[in-house]
């Protein structure tokens, strides 16, 4: 009886499909993945535990309580109000904003300069194309840190002292920085801002309408002039209508230096220049590659249709080139943001210099500070990446 029982139970198991689960490739793959994740989690957990117990054993303070402690040191440049009596937590944001400032302005400038250089290198004009080639080959082949030092120490040294500043249009340039007059909005100046943003919105709507019309009728609309008129004309009209509610705060030489107006510190100028010039050389090559990737037939077709050269570039070449340009361009933007941490070498108060530098040293909490700093760069990079991927998906070839 018992002998005849066993085969029946086995055969029923096979029939019902519940064969041993490691024989099912799908389930087996899933199991390996779960094991891998669990293993990784255990590994990370043991590192964290080990770190904490080691730190405690060595009597090193841990935790994020230090962020609420008074910092007690000064910072050269801050986009938000900051004094020595503020907390370490605030130094984090001061550093972060300085990093974002130099990165964003660097990305904008490098993109503009890079596009001109890339197009210029392809120019039929011998001089322009050679100048662009020489520029690109020089600046992308010299290490960035050296370029930063060059702009900071070599160029800075040639500037005069505050008392012999170079003056132009009410601005002053000396070894301490660039001092610009600052427009201060009076009563009713808000209207000008409102009109500015209204102009931006109107331009966006107009652009959508113009694109639709062009798709349907093929007629071109002078978007550039209309846009400029809306964005700058509207606020300008509002400005005059409100009776020019604006005063100018001029920088004045008092004691050691200029007081008042806007100060652009030389550390910022040097870093921004170096990042822009260096990254622009790479962007130029990406742009050139993108343009060259557009088949020559496209250009010939455009010429045959009688499109002028500027329109050929705008409507035929660039839209197709952008698909090739955008992905590597994203990498350059990420590089620029990360390279901005070289600021610490010349004392520009970016995140690494202020937070991972002074704050780390004054509090001694290396692990927490480095962790926060890495998280910031990761976040900034991912945000840039997400934005560029979104832009890329809009520009990508849509197959119909």
């Amino acid at each position: 009886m018992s002998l005849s029982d066993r085969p029946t139970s086995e055969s029923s198991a096979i029939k019902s499909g519940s064969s041993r689960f490691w024989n099912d490739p799908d389930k087996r793959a899933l199991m390996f993945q779960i094991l891998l994740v669990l293993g990784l989690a255990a590994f990370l957990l043991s590192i964290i535990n080990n770190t904490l117990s080691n730190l405690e054993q060595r009597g090193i303070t841990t935790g994020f309580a230090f962020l609420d402690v008074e910092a007690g040191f000064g910072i050269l440049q801050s986009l938000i109000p900051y004094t020595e009596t503020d907390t370490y937590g605030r130094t984090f944001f001061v550093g972060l904003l300085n990093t974002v400032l130099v990165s964003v302005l660097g990305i904008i400038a490098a993109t503009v300069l890079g596009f001109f250089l890339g197009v210029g290198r392809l120019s039929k004009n011998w001089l322009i194309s050679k100048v662009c080639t020489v520029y690109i080959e020089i600046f992308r082949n010299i290490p960035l840190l050296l370029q930063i030092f060059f702009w900071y120490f070599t160029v800075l040294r040639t500037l005069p002292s505050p008392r012999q500043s170079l003056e132009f249009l009410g601005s002053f340039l000396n070894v301490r920085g660039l001092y610009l007059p600052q427009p201060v909005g009076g009563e009713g100046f808000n209207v000008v801002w409102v009109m500015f943003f209204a102009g931006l919105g109107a331009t966006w709507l107009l652009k959508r309408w113009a694109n639709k019309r062009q798709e349907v009728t093929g007629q071109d609309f002078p978007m550039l002039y209309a846009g400029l008129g809306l964005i700058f004309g509207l606020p300008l009209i509002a400005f005059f209508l409100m009776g020019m509610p604006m005063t100018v705060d001029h920088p004045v030489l008092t004691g050691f230096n200029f007081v008042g107006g806007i100060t652009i510190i030389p550390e910022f100028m040097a870093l921004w220049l170096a990042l822009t010039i260096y990254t622009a050389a790479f962007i130029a090559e990406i742009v050139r590659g993108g343009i060259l990737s557009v088949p020559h037939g496209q250009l010939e077709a455009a010429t045959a249709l009688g499109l002028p050269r500027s329109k050929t570039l705008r409507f035929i070449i660039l839209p197709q080139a952008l698909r090739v340009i955008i992905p590597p361009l994203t990498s350059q933007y990420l590089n620029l943001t990360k390279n901005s941490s070289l600021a610490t070498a010349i004392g520009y108060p970016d995140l690494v210099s202020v937070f991972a530098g002074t704050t780390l040293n004054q509090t001694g909490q290396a692990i927490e500070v480095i962790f926060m700093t890495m998280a910031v760069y990761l976040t900034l990079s991912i945000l840039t990446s997400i934005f560029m991927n979104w832009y890329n998906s809009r520009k990508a070839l849509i197959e119909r």
Partner: protein
Amino acid sequence: MMKKTLMTAAVLAASFSGQAMAEGTLNIVKERGVVQCGVTTGLAGFSNPDEKGQWAGLDVDVCRAVAAATLGDATKVKFIPLTAKERFTALQSGEIDILSRNTTWTQTRDTQLGLNFAGVNYYDGQGFMVSKKLGVKSAKELDGAAFCIQAGTTTELNLADYFRMNGMSYSPVVFDTSDQTVKGFEAGRCDAITSDQSQLYALRIKLVDPEAAMVLPEVISKEPLGPVVRQGDDEWFNVVKWTHNAMLNAEEMGVTSANTDEMLKSANPNVRRLLGLEGPKGTGLNLNDDWAYQIIKQVGNYGEVFDRNVGKDSPLQVSRGINALWSDGGLQYAPPMR
């Protein structure tokens, strides 16, 4: 880049290592046969490579003395140059055995970083150096001035305190190494350099034209500088502490590197205890009995080391001042060796 690598290494070391602490630094040093010593990236008088590439200076001699005491050979030291920012992480992570790098003893550093200060080998105070062209005679006239500072120092904090207390404003330009700080000052980026006064004299002789700069009379802070070790290793802490004490006691008793062998015949019980002929000798420290003899013979007493590196026999020409022995009206005082 080097800096980031070190920082990462330090963080990783804190995460993974667990063994090194348990064994005791003294045993590790004896096994390794070399003392790893964290020093500055170059500061005349304290730790600076000379023309032959040999490290020399007051802070360097602390490490040489420790090597003489533990290994019997003052040359068995590996010097690791560190910026102010890197120094504590390097010590915490076990990259170095002693930090002897112009480090100010403060409460936070002593209590929150897992470190111990093993004594004071130089009593200093923060001062200002300005260009003579500026025509400034006192720090009180520096309202609105720009200052070149080295990052991660107590200097940064004292400067902020001083200007806040006096209701004045300033702008700090923060550099990584003292070399860059001097470059920034020479380029005219700032009106003044602020640092410990001893450093200012050392930086001044590095200037292209030292005569064009002057150190202002004000001293705005207390800066007791000394060697630092990891907390929780009392054996090693004692070794470093008593190395310094032995050098002070030797000066007090008139034992120098030149007359050490002669002094072995001395009848003075204090000298005999210092040289390990009587008294506690080396047992409590787990060192050879002649540990102090080796220090004095190979490196010298505190007075010799001071004069040679920063004092009257050096280009810095710093006077002993508060760094004189207590018996000469200074602050340097060591507990008796008995």
